[in-house]
């Protein structure tokens, strides 16, 4: 049974539905991401769990206890906001001490715990600073320390990296994941950035328009998406239109094997193949290719070459590592496309 459970939770604002009959089961200690485009209801979901907004219908449970009507301060859930929400009128020390003060801890304990928390996030000696004297990454660390110091049962992170520059973002991604692992805290992470979700999560729930479309491990989400929306939202994708048939999907005149190829014969589907999973070779007599085509365009991108290949009126994007031993395939060349049968996924 899940540690955190949403049971049929809906949240409407006026006539618009922000979160639509959501069911969620999150295990203890799990790093769980809510991934979806902006406006799909991720923050609203998180805010219902934190207690800032009440669900219109449905209930939320933690450890089997219904917390739907509990005020935020009674929930033992910590949250890190997108803008960090550092109290600007307090020092870093007082920010981190805030929750401990509210819990009525004595001064000596507070001092000890705050100092330990500052060390934990690598901000020893920053206690007397104010928010405006901190960089984005440092604010982020303060916000996290402020939450972790009270040892909540659940940690919520709402797009915590979106305000940072790219380099900082990469660094903090691993840093947050490491801290989470070492503390072992159940974490729910909201992001619209698929690479963050794929890198950090144990499991991901992909959302769109207030609904959860799929829940699974990063590998499952990336390699076995259950809809075109997810295939296109996460990573780059080729979606070839075809029809279901006995051995897989018929694309043009060729039958290509595909996972998830269940359904009525002849049903229209999209065949998903990731650009980096395709091997491109000159046409030879040997092993039969999945598809053949003609190079329409080639773009040099440093680490890889990116080809557009025309096949039966459709275009396939192929990413080929830039290795000298791989054949040069100029535009116009006839080429064969290979991939392992598991790489193809039929999507409705």
């Amino acid at each position, binding site marked *: 049974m899940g540690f955190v459970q949403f049971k049929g939770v809906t949240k409407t604002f006026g006539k618009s539905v922000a979160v639509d009959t959501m069911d969620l089961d999150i295990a203890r200690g799990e790093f769980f991401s809510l991934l979806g485009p902006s406006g799909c209801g991720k923050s609203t979901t998180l805010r219902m769990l*934190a*207690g*800032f907004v009440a669900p219109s219908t449905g209930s939320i449970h933690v450890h089997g206890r219904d917390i739907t009507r509990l*005020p*935020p*301060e009674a*929930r033992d*859930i*910590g*949250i890190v*906001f997108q*803008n960090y*929400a550092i*109290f*600007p*009128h307090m*020092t870093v020390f007082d920010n981190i001490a*805030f*929750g401990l003060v*509210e*819990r009525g801890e004595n001064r000596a304990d507070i001092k000890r715990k705050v100092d330990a928390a500052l060390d934990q996030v690598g901000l020893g000696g920053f206690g007397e600073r*104010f928010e*405006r004297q901190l960089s984005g990454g440092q604010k982020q660390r303060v916000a996290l320390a*402020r*939450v972790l110091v*009270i040892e909540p049962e659940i940690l919520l992170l709402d797009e915590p990296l979106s305000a940072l520059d790219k380099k900082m973002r990469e660094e903090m991604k691993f840093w947050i994941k490491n801290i989470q692992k070492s503390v072992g805290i159940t974490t729910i992470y909201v992001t619209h950035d698929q690479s963050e979700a794929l890198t950090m999560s144990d499991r991901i729930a992909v959302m769109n328009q207030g609904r959860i479309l799929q829940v699974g491990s990063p590998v499952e989400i990336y390699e076995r998406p259950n809809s075109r929306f997810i295939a296109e939202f996460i990573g780059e994708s080729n979606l070839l239109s075809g029809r279901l048939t006995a051995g897989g999907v018929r694309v043009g005149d060729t039958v290509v094997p595909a996972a998830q190829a269940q359904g009525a014969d002849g049903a229209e589907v999209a065949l998903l193949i990731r650009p980096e999973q395709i091997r491109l070779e000159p046409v030879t007599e040997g092993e039969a290719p999945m598809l053949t085509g003609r190079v329409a365009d080639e773009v040099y991108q440093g680490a890889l070459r990116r080809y557009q290949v025309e096949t039966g009126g459709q275009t396939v994007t192929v990413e080929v590592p830039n290795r000298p031993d791989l054949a040069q395939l100029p535009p116009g060349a006839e080429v064969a496309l290979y991939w392992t049968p598991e790489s193809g996924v039929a999507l409705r």
Partner: protein
Amino acid sequence: MSALSTNVFAQARMKWLLVVPLLAFFVVFFVIPVGLLFATSLNPQAIGQVAVTADLTLDNYLRFFSRSNYLLAAGRSVILGVIVAAITVVVAYPMAYVIAKTEHPGRNTFLLILVLAAMQLDMVIRLYGMMVILGDEGLINQMLRGLGLIGAESSVQLMYNFMGVVMGLVQFALPFMILTLVGVIRGIDPSLEEAARSLGASRRRAFLRVTLPMSMPGILSGSLLVFALSISSYIVPALMGGFRVGVLPIHIFQQVAEGARFQFGATIAVILFVLSALAVAIYLRLGRRHSGGLA
């Protein structure tokens, strides 16, 4: 390179030009009158004389500081300003909070219009309105008589005293305070309060530890504004105090309009001005402390 720097200089000069009208206005309507006022206060007493002379003396100031009734008036003005500012903060804060937290645009505008509507009417008209309520024959006294709480011939003194002036000034100053506070409270990121809540603070504690301290700049600047408005107000002490509450502006009026003693009137005005300036200095000091070292 040189074209670029010329351009930058040209831009800097252009910026100065933008300030010129404001500066001219400031000089013509503020610096010169206050300078003349100050000069007049240093001229010897000459009833009926308006013009400034080169004859300088501190006699007027000595006279002010040697007479207890003027010192008392100064004290009364300061106390009045402080009391009015304090009451106004307490009354205005909840209203400002509600307006600031009302997200619905229609309702929000409606509330603001209510506040602004109070400012639309001239002060004199509003004060007569208050007299209808607070006067000896006013609504409250009639009600008290009707209920038999006081005798048919007697009345409770609700105006023409210090309390009356305070009430008049509070209702005068309220919109200024509300508008100042709404701006500041609205500027407080709502996620700060939420962060406080999820860290274990009740609604009340989150207000006391986050929202209220973060409203401090607004409370301070609003109080300063109200203090300055209150100690310099003539019309409210005149109408609500019936000239019986001797604050500095009443004395200025008596010196200038009744006695034609422009020099001494100017002296009192300068002292009033200095009191306001002192309030500003205290405000800046407090403001610095509240923003943690940086204004």
